[in-house]
């Protein structure tokens, strides 16, 4: 193997490194065919041309680059490498600028560290790192589960982008909770209003449509399955196979004209779900009156024995009382979960007596929405159970939310929904007295505070206090609350009380998460890959989440999440084929003993035991699900798993180079295994900070601070994730001459590979105990976490360890 080393002096600015000595050192240490060349400014156009010319002439198999951090060098030379038809893995960077040149002012010390870094990189480069092209064709279809505002938005966006969309809805209608809410804030109009697609195009300015005229279900790319649920999922990103079971509605969707004659003749009387049981309906019924995408359906369980009245009267022959359940296998490249929320059970908050005799006029906010909806059971009049118009209404916020006892989270929209209902009632019935009891009013969206002001303007009363209980005398309700602003007790005698219930994940979310191998967080909602901007992504590359399935949200946010998820799924599928992006895990089936530890530690579910179906093959690692974090490799007791480009041999060879001077160096040497993500950047950040202070003079007082804080003799090497650093690797590194070892990972809750940093913390804890047992001071091994903005954490730990090792002396072997 021929290895070419390119040194760059960053325009001649790294004067504290002896470049000539470095070049001589490399010539002495490297193999016969190898070469080491120097350029003062390699990233300049002239430098790049010279680089291209040199590589073309010398034709090395691998390249070592000694200069700025490989984090930026990688991007600077991306085009050049493409031109040379080399993979990024065939270049190994030695970070001589951020990690050494900018931090260690002493020329002798800096040059010594630079030699170590360079030789380490060279050793690593002696391994073959050519990347086999690996491509998997992806299905261009998408499955969306849940047809509420988020699912509808995602379906429309994906369909407009040209993907065939399978929209799966459990209810017999679309629109989700929004279909029950009537109007919504802050626009103060229909909750189910949607953009129009298919006919005029989604982006036509100003066009928005009611559900009933949206032609949503007529879009040629959208397949809507109502009364359907996902029962099984197999496959991974790009190629899912999803089993969907559709319950019969007994009405042929393509024939029904919504005339309603079937319901008219139906002899039954059942509570109506969409109106939360406030009124009754027939067994043949229209689930929501406001949508033409919804047709009449028949609930056969409720049909009287032998009755065929509906079928006889239907003028368009749409009814088939023998309709069967249908099971479909849908192939899709990706899935969006938009399963939404439901109201928390109001009976759990006992002191409000929801559902108890005498408390029939205690309702939830959803029920109040039905009462004041002109399409609702009371034609928009807030009537009491016995039928009289309520003269006073009390709205109680935060019922079951923001509580250690019930649900810890703020449900985000209840304040505004309460205000919306108060406004709607007051506008239609100014004589009704409306009072809102609140802990804090959270009016945080665009135009929300204005909406709140409007409510005050209309004369709606606001009392700061969470009512302790509701009492009933059979006729009136009495709400007992403190008015915390007046420091007074208030007993509100009222006709109707509406509880703003907490929002909890839809039932079945957990089972879906299990089927799709994603996580739910402690609240029960789906866990986003990253809360700041990967909100709609999950740890499975092909599974996205949207709407209120992530956390409680208003309709604008829900729609944004739906669109965001669709846009990201489109970006994924539009690639057509899936390329191998990361170094991934490889298993040697001859070594494997089928202990299945790797299967249990893999946070992505990428590993499967396949022996039963494939004799001779024990364990299979999915090349599309695996991200190459190496948690499996470091846990494998027989070293059967390796990570391309980060194999144990390769890492140890690099350590050998990093510790080239272990025998002659009188000072202690610290090896740092840094996760290639946030942690490595944090060390870069230290160098950047030091250089910034030195050159920019903006804080004279702290000019030398970072350099003083940061010790030399640090030998840093990147790993894909600290979860890949095995106990064996740490022990061998000590044996090879390290006096101290720091494992620098990302913060455990921000680990890029879910559990990697946590795993390494546990490993270090155990190893510390083992070191102590072996008579080695456990302070020689530390785990630290850092990200770019907390780079000082690493500097502090490194300095502390350096001082400690000075005290302890070199490790005797």
């Amino acid at each position, binding site marked *: 193997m021929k290895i070419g080393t390119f040194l760059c002096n960053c325009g001649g600015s790294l004067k504290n490194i002896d470049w000539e000595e470095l070049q001589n050192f490399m010539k002495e240490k490297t193999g016969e065919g190898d070469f080491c060349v120097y350029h003062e400014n390699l990233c300049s156009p002239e430098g790049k041309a010279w680089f291209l010319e040199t590589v073309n002439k010398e034709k090395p198999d691998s390249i070592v680059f000694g200069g700025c951090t490989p984090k930026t060098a990688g991007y600077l030379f991306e085009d050049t490498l493409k031109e040379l038809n080399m993979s990024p893995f065939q270049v190994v960077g030695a970070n001589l600028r951020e990690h050494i040149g900018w931090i260690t002012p002493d020329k002798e010390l800096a040059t010594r560290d630079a030699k170590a870094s360079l030789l380490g990189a060279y050793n690593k480069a002696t391994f073959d790192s050519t990347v086999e092209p690996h491509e998997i064709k992806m299905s261009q279809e998408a499955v969306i589960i849940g047809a509420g505002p988020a699912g509808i938005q995602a379906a429309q966006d994906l369909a407009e982008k040209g993907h065939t969309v399978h929209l799966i809805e459990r209810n017999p209608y679309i629109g989700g909770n929004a279909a029950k809410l009537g109007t919504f804030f802050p626009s103060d109009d229909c909750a189910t209003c949607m953009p129009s697609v298919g006919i005029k195009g989604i982006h036509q300015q100003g066009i928005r449509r009611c559900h009933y005229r949206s032609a949503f279900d007529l879009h040629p790319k959208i397949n809507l399955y109502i009364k359907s649920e996902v029962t099984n999922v197999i496959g991974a990103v790009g190629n899912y196979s999803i089993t969907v079971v559709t319950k019969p509605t007994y009405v042929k969707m393509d024939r029904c004209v919504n005339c309603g004659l079937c319901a008219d003749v139906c002899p039954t009387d059942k509570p109506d779900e969409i109106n939360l049981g406030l009124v009754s309906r027939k067994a043949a019924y229209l689930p929501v009156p406001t949508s033409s995408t919804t047709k009449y359906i028949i609930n056969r369980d409720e049909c009287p024995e032998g009755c065929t009245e509906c079928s006889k009267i239907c003028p368009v022959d749409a009814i088939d009382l023998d309709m069967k359940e249908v099971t479909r296998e849908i192939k899709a490249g990706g899935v969006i979960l938009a399963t939404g929320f439901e109201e928390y059970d109001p009976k759990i908050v006992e002191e409000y007596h929801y559902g108890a005799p005498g408390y029939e006029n205690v309702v939830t906010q959803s029920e109040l929405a039905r009462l004041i909806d002109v399409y609702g059971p009371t034609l928009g009049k807030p009537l009491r159970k016995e039928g009289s118009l309520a003269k006073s209404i009390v709205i109680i916020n935060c019922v079951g939310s923001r*509580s*250690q*006892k*019930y649900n810890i989270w703020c449900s985000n929209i209840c304040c505004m929904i309460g205000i919306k209902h108060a406004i709607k009632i007051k506008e239609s019935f100014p004589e009704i007295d409306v009072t809102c009891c609140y802990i804090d009013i959270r009016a945080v969206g665009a135009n929300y505070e204005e909406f709140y002001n409007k409510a005050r303007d209309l004369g709606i009363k606001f009392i700061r*206090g*969470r*009512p*302790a209980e509701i009492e009933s005398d059979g006729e009136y309700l009495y709400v007992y609350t403190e008015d*915390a602003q007046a420091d007074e*007790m208030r007993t509100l005698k009222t006709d109707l009380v509406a509880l703003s219930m907490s929002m909890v994940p839809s039932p079945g979310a957990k089972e879906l998460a299990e089927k799709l191998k994603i996580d739910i967080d402690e609240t029960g909602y789906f866990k986003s890959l990253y809360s700041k901007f990967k909100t709609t992504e999950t740890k499975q590359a092909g599974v996205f989440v949207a709407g209120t399935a992530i956390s409680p949200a208003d309709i604008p946010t829900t729609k944004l999440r739906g669109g965001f998820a669709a846009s990201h799924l489109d970006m994924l599928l539009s690639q057509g084929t899936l390329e191998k992006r990361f170094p991934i895990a490889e298993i040697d089936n001859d070594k494997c003993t089928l202990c299945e530890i790797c299967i249990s530690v893999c946070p992505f579910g990428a590993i499967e035991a396949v022996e039963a179906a494939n004799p001779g093959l024990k364990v299979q690692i999915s090349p599309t699900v695996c991200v190459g974090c190496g948690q499996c490799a470091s846990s494998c007791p027989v070293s059967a798993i390796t990570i391309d480009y980060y194999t144990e041999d390769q890492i140890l060879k690099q350590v050998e180079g990093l510790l080239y001077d272990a025998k002659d160096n009188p000072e202690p040497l610290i090896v740092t295994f840094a996760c290639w993500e946030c942690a490595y950047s944090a060390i870069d950040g230290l160098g950047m900070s030091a250089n910034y202070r030195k050159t920019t003079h903006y804080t004279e007082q702290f000019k030398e601070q970072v350099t003083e804080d940061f010790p030399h003799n640090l030998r840093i090497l990147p790993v894909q994730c600290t979860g890949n650093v095995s106990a064996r690797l740490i022990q061998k590194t000590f044996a090879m001459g390290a006096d101290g070892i720091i494992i620098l990972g990302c913060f455990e809750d921000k680990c890029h590979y879910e559990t990697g940093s946590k795993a390494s913390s546990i490993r270090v804890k155990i190893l510390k105990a083992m070191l102590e047992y072996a008579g080695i001071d456990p302070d020689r091994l530390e785990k630290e976490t850092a990200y770019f903005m907390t780079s000082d954490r690493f500097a502090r730990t490194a300095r502390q360890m350096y001082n400690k090792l000075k005290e302890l002396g070199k490790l005797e072997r």
Partner: protein
Amino acid sequence: MTESTELLEKFEELLEVTKLCYQCGTCAGGCPVFRQYPNFNPRRVMEKLLMKDFSEQIFDDQQIWYCSMCYTCSVRCPQGIDVGHVITEIKNLAVQMKNAPPGIVAELETIMETGVTAAISKGIMKRREQLELPELPPPNLDEIQKIFEVTGAEKYIKQIKEETS
């Protein structure tokens, strides 16, 4: 450990359990005393703790003695704070700091000496007779005095009396 550091530690413990209080007023809204007597407001007691008001004020506050210890606040608190317990602890601390109101001390003394809060008068006995209720058994004074001794109540009553006389 001196008595004052012990008190301070106890106080820190109380602060610890009240940390999550967001002053929603559920405790006050359900408090049967607050409904009748607005000067006693459990939410205000919690507020003082949250503000780390470690002046004597909180213990000097005679109003906390109006708490009837029904613990409705503890049951209702959405943050799961045992408000009733916190108020009881403040009462205990106040006693240790010799800040109990004279009326309370006198009542305690009566119980300690007679075993009952109020002496059983002839009138009461007569009324019971009329209602055909059984005769009241005499209080077990030994047991009651043992409780006063073991809990330290006896000691505190004595100290407070010495202080005030």
